[in-house]
């Protein structure tokens, strides 16, 4: 078990790097979405062809980047492996390799769902513009929460219901557009149905299988890495995007690409590099701090997109989502909706309570540690010396849930006895 790196609690430096990483990841996200929007609006108008073009370029860019990550950077070896640049981004990365077995299946499923959401992303981007797409992307949280509640067979707690309501209403408000002066109810309904239905469901399934792939060990007991996962899902997305683009290409879309591909190439390369960097930054941040904070802070992209579209709007007034006669009304709607989403996400992310449970092991009973670690909310378990035998760190949404967890899961384990709970009132990490 590798020991966590010494991270003194009083030092500011690490903390600021962490915040910088997460916030940059969020801001970079807004940049690539707006960049996509511009290319889509000005150069390659068909969303399917644009998607396919971007994915093909993106694949090449990412492949070159990953090749660069294979460069060894230090002669030092950890165990039998030589460290390369990729190690800086993900400690599990060794080289690009084809995923096999269970991990392979999870990657394939992640790729298929990612394809679904990416194809819809390009379609929705075309229909609504970047200022609307960003709030949409937060909607997936609602599905993840509902999925969690179903898996736990638990009623959601009040903060979860509040956040779900805030995010849902925020998305609806932010997607309203009065660009033409009147509210187009039909297209609004279609959009909401698309976001609430397939787009969010696909994204939720993508996140689920991504996590599955990253947490499943292969035959040698090694974990998969984010760089490989990103590359292989990208291959699947690229293939699906190309297939989705065939009808448009047959209908004469090919000429559009043929005339504009050179101009579109630079922004698309930048966009795909931004995507890669945003993903790498947030994954890197994940290894340094709490996941909930990473998720909450990266939702800053929802807000950043608004001024960005406004700035771009000076040159390209038609950039969708914002603009038209009722600029101020649209802006107020967008800002109000985005703020609702942001507050909803942050409230949810920061509402977790943490506890430390101390327990004794019953003599003569076989210890099955995986029974403990598989319980939802248990982050880690340590065997310790002294009065108690086990220290269990728990992260859960409410004290009520902690009660049902100890009562229904931990107390039922035959080999555990005498559990005492310490709720953390304040914590420094």
């Amino acid at each position: 078990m590798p020991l966590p790196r010494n991270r003194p609690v009083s030092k500011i430096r690490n903390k600021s790097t962490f915040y910088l990483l997460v916030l940059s990841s969020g801001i970079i996200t807004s940049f690539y979405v707006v960049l996509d929007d511009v290319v889509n609006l000005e150069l390659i108008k068909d969303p399917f062809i644009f998607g396919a073009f971007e994915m093909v370029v993106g694949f090449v860019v990412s492949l070159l980047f990953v090749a660069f990550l294979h460069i060894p950077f230090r002669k030092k070896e950890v165990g039998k492996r030589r460290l390369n640049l990729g190690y800086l981004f993900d400690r599990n990365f060794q080289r690009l390799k084809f995923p096999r077995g269970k991990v392979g299946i999870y990657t394939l499923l992640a790729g298929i769902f990612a394809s679904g959401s990416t194809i819809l992303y390009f379609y929705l981007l075309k229909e609504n513009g970047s200022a609307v797409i960003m709030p949409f992307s937060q909607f997936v949280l609602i599905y993840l929460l509902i999925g969690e509640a179903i898996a736990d067979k638990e009623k959601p707690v009040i903060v979860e219901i509040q956040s779900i309501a805030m995010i849902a209403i925020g998305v609806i408000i932010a997607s309203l557009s009065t660009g033409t002066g009147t509210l187009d109810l039909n297209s609004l309904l279609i959009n909401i149905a698309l976001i609430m239905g397939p787009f969010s469901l696909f994204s939720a399934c993508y996140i689920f299988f991504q996590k599955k792939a990253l947490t499943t060990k292969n035959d040698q007991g090694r974990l998969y890495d984010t760089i490989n996962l990103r590359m292989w899902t990208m291959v699947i997305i690229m293939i699906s995007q190309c297939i989705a683009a065939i009808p448009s290409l047959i209908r004469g879309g090919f000429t559009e690409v043929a005339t504009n591909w050179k101009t579109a190439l630079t922004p698309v390369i930048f966009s795909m590099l931004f995507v890669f960097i945003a993903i790498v930054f947030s994954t890197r941040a994940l290894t340094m701090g709490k996941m909930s904070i990473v998720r909450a802070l990266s939702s800053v992209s929802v807000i950043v997109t608004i001024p960005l579209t406004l700035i771009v709007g000076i040159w390209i007034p038609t950039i969708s989502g914002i603009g038209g006669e009722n600029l101020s009304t649209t802006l107020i709607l967008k800002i109000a909706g985005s703020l609702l989403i942001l507050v909803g996400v942050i409230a949810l992310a920061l509402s977790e309570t943490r506890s430390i449970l101390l327990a004794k092991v019953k003599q003569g009973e076989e210890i099955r540690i995986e029974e403990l670690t598989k319980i939802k909310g248990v982050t880690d378990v340590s065997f310790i010396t002294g009065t108690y035998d086990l220290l269990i760190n728990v992260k859960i949404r409410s004290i009520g849930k902690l009660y049902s967890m100890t009562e229904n899961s931990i107390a039922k384990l035959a080999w555990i006895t005498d559990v005492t709970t310490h709720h953390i009132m304040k914590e420094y990490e």
Partner: protein
Amino acid sequence: MSVSAYIFFEVELGKTRQVVDELRKIPNIVRVAIVTGEYDVIVRINVENLEELFHITTDRIHMIEGITDTQTAVIEKEEIQE
């Protein structure tokens, strides 16, 4: 071979803030939690070996005013989810 340990503290009434501030100055301490229950403060410490753990606990931690009792629990094995 590095060693990690949890240290459980009982703290004199009204001195928690002071004790926690002092504990946070020790670079090997990676986590400080103020808790409810049997103990008042729980910290996690990473050191190179038991010798270093001994030095830090006796020379630095036990010198902090306001701590009434400590219990050090060395981690023998750790299982992390995910």
